[in-house]
């Protein structure tokens, strides 16, 4: 799947592969305990603010189930403490640690590293 491969080539396996830290938006632009979508080149990236744990996660905005650009509008949560996102369409859930689908056999989603500096959110890409 072209669109998924395109995302995978941007997602880093480990931090030393990161070439670009893209300044996405200010912390205050994101809702608390929820997500928003940012645009990087032609990509749509869902960024999630886990305010309760003071953690940030990012993944592709595309839900692989029905190929919809909606994950950023989904509900965040956790399973056994691991952060996850539920797609708003059919509540398919995906781990934000490794992108695995947690309640089905959907494709793995790409996840991206996030860092916070001077109040801004940066997303790491390989290109």
């Amino acid at each position, binding site marked *: 799947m072209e669109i998924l491969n395109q995302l995978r080539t941007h997602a880093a396996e480990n931090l030393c592969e990161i070439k670009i830290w893209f300044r996405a938006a200010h912390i205050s632009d994101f809702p608390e305990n929820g997500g928003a979508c940012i645009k990087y080149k032609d990509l749509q990236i869902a960024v999630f603010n886990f305010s309760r744990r003071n953690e940030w996660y990012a993944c592709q905005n595309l839900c692989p189930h*029905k190929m*919809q650009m909606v994950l950023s*509008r989904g509900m965040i949560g956790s399973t*056994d403490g691991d952060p996850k996102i539920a797609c708003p369409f059919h509540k398919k859930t995906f781990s934000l640690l490794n992108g695995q689908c947690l309640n089905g056999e959907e494709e793995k989603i790409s996840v991206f590293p996030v860092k916070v500096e001077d109040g801004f959110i940066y997303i790491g890409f390989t290109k």
Partner: protein
Amino acid sequence: MTRIIVVGNGMVGLKFCEKLISRSADFEIIVYGEEPRPAYDRVHLSSFFSGSSAEDLLLTPYSWYESNKIKLLTGELVTSIDRNEKAVQTHSGRKDHYDILVLATGSSAFVPNIEGVERNGVFVYRTIEDLIQIRDYASKIKKAVVIGGGLLGLEAAKAMIDLRLETHVVEFAQRLMPRQVDDDGSAILVNKLQQLGIQVHINKSTSRIEGNGKLEGLTFSNGTSIDADMLVISAGIRPRDELAKNSGLNVHQRGGILVDDFMKTNDENIFAIGEAVCHNNMVYGLVAPGYEMAEVVVRQLVNDHIKPFKGFDMSTKLKLLGVDVGSFGDAFGETPGSIPIALKDNRNGVYKRVNISSDGKFLLGGILVGDAAQYHLFHQMVANKIPLPNQPESLIFGTSSKTDETSGVKNLPDSAQICSCENISKGDLVFQIAQSGVTTLDGLKKNTKACTGCGGCAPMVNDILKITLESLGHKVKKTLCEHFDYSRQELFGIIKVKELRTFNQVLDSHGRGDGCEVCKPAVASLLASIWNEPIMQQPTIQDTNDRYLANIQKGGSYSVVPRIAGGEITPDKLMAIGRIAQKYNLYTKITGGQRIDMFGARVDQLPSIWAELIEEGFESGHAYGKALRTVKSCVGSTWCRFGVQDSVAYAIFIENRYKGLRAPHKIKGAVSGCIRECAEAQSKDFGIIATEKGWNLYVCGNGGARPQHAKLLVNDVDMETCTKLIDRFLMFYIRTADPLTRTATWLNKMEGGLDYLREVIIDDKLGICDLLEKEMKELIEGYHCEWKKVVDDPELQKQFKHFINSDDTDPTLSFVEVREQKLPSNWNEMRDKNK
């Protein structure tokens, strides 16, 4: 240190290594693999065509072998064994000494000897390399034929469909899956496959592959033929026994390295396992028996609980192209005297056959196609010789309701194997539950590893958990999810008494973790039902429709439904809707609830659409919420010559009374002006029907997947009494129902049923009617239009944007024009386009 060489790095060879290193560190392990990459998941090979990459299919990465000190040599074909010197030699000339040799050489695709089989465009379906070649070739062609209608062949057919090719399956036998299902089962399967666009040709023996260089078609022995651009042969396997044979090891005349019950060949230092093996005249083409063989060898090597390989039950349950197929025990009724009982349902595409013993006491085996939900139960009944019920036909003709299944589990002996992947018996599970105090399925999975393989045993494990907990005196409690140990009803009380206003407060004081997509909307609904504060204050705990106050539709656009109480609307307002829909290019449709839905709005357009609607005197219709939707009405006594009361006026009054009311699920109402019931009030959560003397009130009906008529609560009451009873009824429902439970289901589950409901809300048996009325009054007085809250507050409007770092709209939104309006592009097509 004993030096072990494993020849073959497939699924069984790898499993052998895993099992050995988990038991002992006293072995030096060297693995030779012929293929260029380490062991991959051959069972799910066809997922390569639905998006998995070769890397995704790897069972373990190279690093796993390294960190476990296993030396892995891929791309090295072992060509000979010097049994006297105890050494192997590879095609590159490498020589290696062993103390123990394990042959896990697997199998290759069986290629029948057909004229023309060497032509271009003919492939086998076996390795990732085969698949890469097939994929490359498929990009240039249209029509594929698969030879082989067995398990592997149908897997290959699925791959052809995933490659978007016209797909034909050719089977030599008179049915598909000849080893698993009979002719009738096959007929159902053929039907299902044809619905998926796969053409099936049975009883066809291919005599020649036509073409000139590359293939152009197949000719069958009966003279007929078929055109084809590509041929995939998946007609069975042949054990890879040539290495063993050339080294003087005994092999079966039809193929397969001969082994004894301990997987030993005729050389005591050489074992053989997996598909390469012939044990007791059987070659096993499945992975589970191979794993068992690996276990048998490992136990001998570490000298612990040594056991023989006793053959393997070939019962299987699988999902082929979305169709469930199960085959268990004596599937074809070959036991002397066995009696078959079969159900063939062409309408629903279901075939069930059970074979019972001649005395009618035991189940011997059977076949399930289209619905294999009973597979595990039946399989257990066979394996454990559970006595049949008096009418054994009830097994397949009766409804397979949940209660039957739990009683089935109850009768299983402790020795019954429940999880065949991890080899866990019922006794193991019961022991764990009693000892460790686990109360959840997830906990039990963690403790025992049950259900962690294929997951097929999960329903039985859950039933065993339930039964065991009940027998231990536990009350099985309905909790929301892993973050709350309370039921919805308990949380209602907690939130109210402790005056909790936000999800975070509720979670901090009475829950744990971060919440999830189950508890967040449930608590959001409770907070709305109790305090009626604007839900926009906590947008991220709302389901997406509530979060954006509109209904998300295919493609990611939203639909907007303004309230049209009772279905009554002025021409001016009708024109206003038309004008606004035209301006924003929205698709419009009349809904089933007598109002108008406007589809296709972008998320950033929503606030301005609402602003214009509000300007024209509309307000939110709450079509997005678990809330009161509509109160439908017939035209009633004002116009209708049959009408006995003014149903429109009453419907408008009621809809405005309860608008914005949030509940465990959506609520619909209706008012009919006479006994003819044109408003269909008896299919609603509450329905009111006019009589000569007043109104009849019906409750707890619904349409939907399981339609249920509403039940008569009271008759011939005046409007004031009727309204008061609806107040009490709805509030009692809001307080006590589980999340996402409609009133009909709520009543069905209520102990005492309708009589009890009457006792509570009419006779006031619990003394809560005043409270219910007071709570309802507060909710009604607290009503606000949620759209207006957003329109009036620029801060709230900020989240109505697709990107937060750009004003661009979502470039993937796409529409087509149909019947002079726009519709979203078909999402299956979109999905395929992206493939």
